[in-house]
């Protein structure tokens, strides 16, 4: 007779673990079931080569709230940051790199007007982020106005926008629906600078800079910086897996049980109540409630039998957009690479390859037709520069987000991946001419590979696209926006919930707090 748990959490991603930690600390019994052999979900580590540790999913930490890290004592659970406040360097073929350091932009091609505009831009965006920020930490407000609480929640959101003052509220309401391409055109002249800023709205998403709603995704990212305790873009020591490991330790210390290699086949539902799970091995584990860290599509289209759901609900879930467009490139290098215009001090920065906003669009275009870009845009980091534990023997690790890859389910997938790896290396070579000679090991993950490795539908980082129709009270759909579901005692705690993706942990924390309050 196995022990009966109050909570089963499906998936040991950072949100699932955070949820477990909060529940356990409140005295609840929690069992976390993880399908793969390692914990961490998209914030995990694995060996790329002997002695080289890679973070194959997310590779930087920039959105986790400082108070969450404090509450879970993550520093006591061995989480430390190898580097904080990374600069962003936009690479140029001619070596005229542009460096972003806080409010300061440096680069020979950047005009004084643009430098001043950048300060103004940051100030404006911070202002808007502040208005939006609180709503991204609490439970999503409900769109209903039936009770006073619901009304007050909505009015609170309205008031935080009204508080901006008349001029800035108008500006907020104007730009929020805008595309980033046009907004950046209003502020800046330098095309390379615009492109580097633009990408921060686009990493992981499905669309290009000209797509409506890209200002919203930028503010969403900025809100992460605003709450992470001034560490800016940070690199955890030992890789992103260290973040999940620390949360797991916190959870275990509070009593959570974690089982890896335990793939859930289905969520058991009786009389519209979730009563436990059945594993692929046939083992059935019962619990008072089930909390899914899997994305909404998996949860409701694979793990729950459609017999238990309304057709309208199933249709809404089916129509959720989860078309991942971001891939990952990992290179083990024999020595530190030399990027044009980047000195050794800046080699540990975040380096962007995105020459102009129009070239971003050109990279984006083919992905609409399930094709690969010819000049991909990249976010490159060299984790081994800031953290020697990443690669031994003087070798280096290059980790890059490769934006705008199709979800390739064609029979030519293998060949396409091999061919595209060459395309990416060609692109890198333009900025680091000697890099090919330094490569010991290369790996490219397409969105489909990411789906295979991490389990998220469509390989989409944020589980569900971050856009207006799946934002706040609509994330992922209104019926699921506050972690509860049409099935009693089945909860969601992943990135598909409000507030959304990035290694943040808020969805896990909110779900736990809601459950502790009685699930309403």
């Amino acid at each position, binding site marked *: 007779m196995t022990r009966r748990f109050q909570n089963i959490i499906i998936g040991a991603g950072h949100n699932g673990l955070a949820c477990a930690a909060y529940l356990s600390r409140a005295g609840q019994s929690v069992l976390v079931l993880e399908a793969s052999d390692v914990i961490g979900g998209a914030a995990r580590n694995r060996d790329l080569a002997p002695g080289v540790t890679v973070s194959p999913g997310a590779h930087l930490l920039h959105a986790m709230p400082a108070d969450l890290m404090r509450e879970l004592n993550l520093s006591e659970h061995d989480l430390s940051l190898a580097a904080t406040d990374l600069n962003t360097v936009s690479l140029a073929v001619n070596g005229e790199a542009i460096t972003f350091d806080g409010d300061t932009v440096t680069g020979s091609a950047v005009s004084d007007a643009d430098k001043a505009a950048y300060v103004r831009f940051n100030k404006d965006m911070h202002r808007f982020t502040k208005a939006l920020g609180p709503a991204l930490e609490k439970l999503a407000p409900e769109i209903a106005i039936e009770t006073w609480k619901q009304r007050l929640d909505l009015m609170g959101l309205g008031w935080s926008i009204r508080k901006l003052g008349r001029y800035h509220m108008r500006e907020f309401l104007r730009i929020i629906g805008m595309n980033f391409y046009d907004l950046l055109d209003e502020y800046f002249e330098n095309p390379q600078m615009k492109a580097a800023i633009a990408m921060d709205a686009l990493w992981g998403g499905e669309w290009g800079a000209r797509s409506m709603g890209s200002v919203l995704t930028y503010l969403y990212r900025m809100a992460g910086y605003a709450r992470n305790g001034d560490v800016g873009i940070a690199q955890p020591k030992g890789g992103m897996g260290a973040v999940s490991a620390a949360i797991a330790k916190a959870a275990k210390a509070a009593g959570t049980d974690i089982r890896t290699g335990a793939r859930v086949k289905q969520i058991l539902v009786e009389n519209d109540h979730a009563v436990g799970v059945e594993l692929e091995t046939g083992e059935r584990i019962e619990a008072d409630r089930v909390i899914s860290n899997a994305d909404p599509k998996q949860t409701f289209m694979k793990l729950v039998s459609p017999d238990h759901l309304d057709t309208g609900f199933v249709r809404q879930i089916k129509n959720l957009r989860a078309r991942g467009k971001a891939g990952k490139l990992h290179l083990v290098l024999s020595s530190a690479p030399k990027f044009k215009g980047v000195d050794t001090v800046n080699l540990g920065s975040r380096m962007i390859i995105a020459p102009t906003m129009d070239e971003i669009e050109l990279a984006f275009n083919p992905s609409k037709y399930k094709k690969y870009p010819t000049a991909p845009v990249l976010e490159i980091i060299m984790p081994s520069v800031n953290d020697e534990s990443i690669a031994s023997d003087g070798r280096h690790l290059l980790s890059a987000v490769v934006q705008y890859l199709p979800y390739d389910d064609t029979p030519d997938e293998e060949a396409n991946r091999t061919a595209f790896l060459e395309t990416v290396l060609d692109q890198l070579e333009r900025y680091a001419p000697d890099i090919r000679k330094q490569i010991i090991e290369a790996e490219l993950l397409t969105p489909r590979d990411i789906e295979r490795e991490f389990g998220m539908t469509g390989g989409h980082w944020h589980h569900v696209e971050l856009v*207006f*129709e799946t934002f706040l009270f609509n994330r992922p759909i209104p019926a699921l926006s506050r972690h509860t579901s049409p099935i009693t005692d089945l909860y969601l705690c992943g990135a598909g919930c409000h507030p959304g993706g990035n290694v943040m942990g808020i969805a896990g924390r909110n779900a736990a707090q809601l459950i502790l309050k009685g699930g309403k």
Partner: protein
Amino acid sequence: MKQYDAVIIGAGHNGLVAAGYLQRSGLKVLVLERNDHIGGATTSISRYEDFTYSNCSYVCSLFRQEIARSLELYKYGLQVIPYAGGAQIIKNDDGSYDAMGTYWHDDANRRDLERFSKRDTNAYDRLNRDIIRQCKFIKPLLMRTPADPTSFKPRDLMELLYLGKRFYGLGKEQMHETMRFYTMSVADYLNEYLENDALKSYLAGGATVGTALGVYSPGTAYILLHHAMGDLDGNVGAWGFARGGMGAISKALNDSFLAAGGHVRLNAGVSNFTVEHGKVKGMQLENGETVKADLVVSGMDVRRTFNAIDANELPQWVVDRAKNFRFRGSSGKVNIALDGLPSFYGIPKDSPCMTGDLHISQSMDELELAYDDWKAGRWSQDPYLDMLIPSLVDPTMTPQGKHWMSVFIQYCPYKLAEGDWNEDRKNAFGNHIIDRISQFSPDFKEKVLHMEIRTPKDIEDETGLTEGNIFQGELTMDQLMFNRPIPGYAQYRTPISGLYMCGSSTHPGGGVMGAPGANAAREVLLDLGKRMVP
């Protein structure tokens, strides 16, 4: 010099609507028009022998019925003839052709659709139901002044309350649907309902008209409303031709205005406004003449309007907003005089489908690729073409037995990557369109007698629409409702006292609706303490 109570700049349809209402409400109104003809982009013009073209806007549906009735346009000769169908020509994989017809008669429509997809036939009804639902939500807002969401004035609060009430009246599920509808791409939206490529591209193409967005761009789904929001004599969703071309609308408006005692002066372009102490005092014309007026209503787009004011008279942020208001020329037009009716593959010659809109885009990917061309600064290789032969239902426009065809082209950039527009490039563009049509019409080329090629640059030069944007500014979320044209000045007023705007740059936007003109007139009269007649 004769003094007028109000001067309207521009005899476009919105200017004439505003003029008509103001004149009937007891003001003495003068309309100044830069061109030697009235109508702006709502014109009928002869460019070749006895052929008359609707050379800019070419079909009628969105024009507000209440305006047509108030200004007695039917009495002044306006007749709108609904078209009986339309067709999507399909090129099969084996090289053969077929056409999916759409018909005014629902049963005929279903019968033809069923040939392609039984499933879609039912889904299409569901789709139309859902779109009409959205129409019902939005339609009453067209003739209302948008509330300023930052204002605590009773009037704005009441209007916001009205909006909120309507929104919450939709019910929880429909509120979500509405939010989705306004923010998603038309491709995603249609994919949720339909499976057949021909039907999807037939519908999706229409959602890119006049905008610099592609079918995969978020925020295009709601443009489907344009196909359902209009009505002709109470026939919801009907589209039609004004007899005598679109100029017939301007003509009826003009005649109605003149009959009420108004005056119109042609060849009287305004070069700048005279402003003293924040109040408008009149304007200087391009010929050097000055016209005095304390009340001016500008039908020009927002950028032109503010460009005609000394920047020192305006707050800097207003100048910036006007500068940043987005006009994106993305549409071209070719008007073709034909020596007889051309035949199209897949459509019988006497089919009622021929009297409506003909389309040849084969898939949504093809439509999106057309947009990629625009982004790169070229005209689309396989553009979305909206082809109509108005002379089939309106014989007044061509000599006996001849026809004219209006071809609307999406996309055609205002600026080409290779350089400015010139005669050679313009002709290459026109010929490209003819070649493209010829792929679907074997005898088309031999029937072409004349063609008038209109790039966004030409449209700008002739009508004054900045960058040739047919809506006087993109209809994207950041430029709609209380954001149109400038947040804080979305109620037809400007920072200059006595200066108003009535063009399509204002709410609810373009599409030969007349609503901006009527709304502006209402606001002017409100400030004068007068009631709008009728």
